[in-house]
C-alpha cells in the first residue's frame, strides 16, 4: 500500500457513512468529516486520525442524520445488485440456523421449535414455488439481455444470473435424484408446459417497454397466494398447539410482510419501472436450501442432541439411584432430589429439548425427554427404562417389534437403540 492510500480515511467507514447518511446532508457532512480527518492527520498522526474519523462516523449514526429507515432495510424488489446476492446468502444462512437451532446446545426454548417447523415447511411446501422461480428467473434474465442499452452493467448481472440459475438447476437435479423423481416429476412437467407458453408470448410482444411484465406479475401473484396458504396452515397448527403468543406474533409479522409484498407486486404492473428482479432467486433458493438441510443435516444433528441430553442426564440418574439406596424407594418426583441429592435438577441444555420427564413405576422408574424432528409432526421420545429389551433386539437399528418392547410408548411406530445403556428412542407421529 503506498503512502497516499494509507493517508486516506478508512474506505469501509466512509462507505458505511455514505450508506446510512441522508442524501440531503451527505455532501457537506462528508466534507466536514474529510476536513477534520485532514486536520487531525497533520496534528495527531494518521493512525489516530483514522480512529477518530471512525468515531465521528459512528456518532453521526443517529435519528435526523440517517436516511429513511425503511429505505435502509428495504428489500429491493426490482433490483439484484451485489447487496441483493448478499441478502440472499444471509437469508439462507438464517434459514439453516433456524431449522437446526432446536438441536444445538443452549437453554431450552419453545420458540426455536416453532422456528424450525417454519424453516422445514419452507423446504417441504415451498418446493411448489420452485417452478415459479425458474420461469420467473428466465423472464428476468431475458429482460436483462434485451435492455442492455439502459444498463451499463448488464453483462455482469447477466453472467451472475446465468451462473446462479445453473447452480440452482443442478441442485434441483440432485433433488430429483434424491426423491427418485417421484415428487418433483409432476412439477417438472408443469414447467415443461408453462415455459413454451411464456416463450410464445414473448415472441408476440416485442415492442413494449417490458414485454414480460404480465408474466412476472402473474407469477408473483401465484407465488404470494401459495406462500400465504402455507403460512396460514402453519399458523392454524401453531394456534391449535396453544402457542397463542408466538402465533399472534407470527400473524402480525406475516401481515406486515404481505403488505410489503402487495406493494411490490403492484409496482410490477408498471413496465417502465422494470429492473432486474431478485424475487425468483428467493423462490428457488430458499425452498431448496431448506429441503436439503432437512434431508441431510437433521439426522446427524438429532443424533448429536440426543447424545448430549443423555449425557446430561447421567448426574440425574445417579442421584435417583442414590436416593433409592438411602431411602429404600425411588423418589415420587425428581424435585425430591433437591433435598440433599442434587443442588439443582439439570436441564438437557439443548434448545429444542425442554426438560427431563420422570415417572415412578412401582419399583422402577423411567426418565424421558422429547425432541421434534419433522415439521412438528414427528416427535422423538427418548426413554430410559431398565425394562427396555435392548439386549433382545439384534442390531442397532433392529426392526421395531411392538410386542418385544415392554416400555411401550403410546403412539410409537418405531423404536431404536441409542447405544447408551438403557436408553431407547421412539418415533411418534
Amino acid at each position, binding site marked *: 500500500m503506498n503512502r497516499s492510500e494509507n493517508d486516506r480515511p478508512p474506505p469501509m467507514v466512509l462507505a458505511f457513512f455514505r450508506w446510512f447518511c441522508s442524501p440531503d446532508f451527505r455532501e*457537506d457532512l462528508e466534507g*466536514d468529516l474529510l476536513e*477534520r480527518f485532514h486536520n487531525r492527520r497533520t496534528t495527531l498522526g494518521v493512525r489516530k486520525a483514522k480512529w477518530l474519523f471512525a468515531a465521528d462516523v459512528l456518532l453521526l449514526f443517529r435519528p*435526523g442524520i440517517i436516511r429513511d429507515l425503511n429505505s435502509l432495510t428495504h428489500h429491493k424488489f426490482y433490483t439484484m445488485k451485489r447487496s441483493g446476492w448478499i441478502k440472499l446468502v444471509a437469508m439462507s444462512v438464517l434459514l439453516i440456523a433456524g431449522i437446526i437451532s432446536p438441536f444445538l446446545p443452549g437453554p431450552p426454548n419453545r420458540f426455536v421449535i416453532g422456528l424450525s417447523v417454519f424453516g422445514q415447511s419452507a423446504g417441504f411446501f415451498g418446493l411448489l414455488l420452485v417452478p415459479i422461480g425458474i420461469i420467473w428467473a428466465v423472464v428476468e434474465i431475458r429482460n436483462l439481455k434485451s435492455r442492455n442499452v439502459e444498463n451499463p452493467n448488464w453483462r455482469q448481472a447477466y453472467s451472475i444470473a446465468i451462473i446462479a440459475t445453473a447452480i440452482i438447476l443442478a441442485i434441483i437435479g440432485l433433488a430429483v435424484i434424491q426423491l427418485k423423481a417421484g415428487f418433483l416429476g409432476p412439477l417438472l412437467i408443469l414447467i415443461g408446459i408453462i415455459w413454451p407458453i411464456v416463450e410464445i408470448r414473448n415472441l408476440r410482444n416485442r415492442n413494449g417497454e417490458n414485454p414480460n411484465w404480465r408474466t412476472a406479475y402473474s407469477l408473483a401473484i401465484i407465488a404470494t397466494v401459495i406462500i400465504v396458504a402455507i403460512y396460514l396452515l402453519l399458523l392454524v397448527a401453531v394456534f391449535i398447539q396453544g402457542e397463542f403468543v408466538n402465533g399472534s406474533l407470527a400473524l402480525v409479522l406475516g401481515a406486515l410482510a404481505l403488505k410489503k409484498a402487495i406493494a411490490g407486486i403492484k409496482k410490477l404492473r408498471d413496465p417502465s419501472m422494470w429492473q432486474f428482479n431478485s424475487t425468483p432467486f428467493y423462490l428457488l433458493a430458499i425452498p431448496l436450501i431448506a429441503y436439503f438441510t432437512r434431508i441431510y443435516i437433521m439426522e446427524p444433528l438429532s443424533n448429536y442432541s440426543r447424545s448430549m441430553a443423555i449425557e446430561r442426564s447421567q448426574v440425574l440418574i445417579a442421584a435417583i439411584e442414590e436416593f433409592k439406596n438411602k431411602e429404600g424407594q425411588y423418589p415420587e418426583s425428581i424435585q425430591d432430589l433437591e433435598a440433599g441429592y442434587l443442588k439443582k435438577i439439570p436441564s438437557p441444555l439443548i434448545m429444542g429439548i425442554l426438560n427431563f420427564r420422570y415417572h415412578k413405576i412401582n419399583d422402577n422408574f423411567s426418565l424421558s425427554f422429547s425432541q421434534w424432528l419433522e415439521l412438528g409432526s414427528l416427535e422423538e421420545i427418548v426413554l430410559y427404562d431398565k425394562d427396555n429389551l435392548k439386549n433382545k433386539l439384534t442390531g442397532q437399528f433392529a426392526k421395531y417389534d411392538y410386542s418385544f418392547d415392554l416400555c411401550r410408548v403410546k403412539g410409537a411406530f418405531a423404536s431404536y437403540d441409542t447405544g447408551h445403556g438403557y436408553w431407547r428412542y421412539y418415533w411418534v407421529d
Partner: protein
Amino acid sequence: MSQYHLGEFEEVVLLTVAILYGEAYGVAIIDEMEKRLNRNVSIGALQTVLRRLEKKGLLTSAFGEATKIRGGKRKRYFTVTEYGQEVLDETKEQRLALWNAIPEVALK
C-alpha cells in the same frame, strides 16, 4: 415572546454561529466551540442540533465553496435568522434577569 426555549447546547451553537458571522460551517463551529469552551464536540451532536435549529427557523443555511481537503465537497454555511436573534435576545434577558435577582450575599 418566543415560544421556543433553547437548551444549553442549542444556545451555545447558536451563539457560536453568530460569532463566526458568515464563516460558520461544521468544522469551523466545532473548532470555535472547542477553543472557547474547552470541551469536545462531536460532528454528530453538532449536526443534530444544527438541523433542529434550522428546522425551527432559528438558523438558515446555504452551500458555499468546495475545497481539495474536503474531497471536493461543498461547505454548508449557517447564519442566524431574525427569529434566531429574537430567541437569543430573550434568552440573554432571562439570564440577566436571573443574575440580577440573586441577592448579593447568596454568591459570595
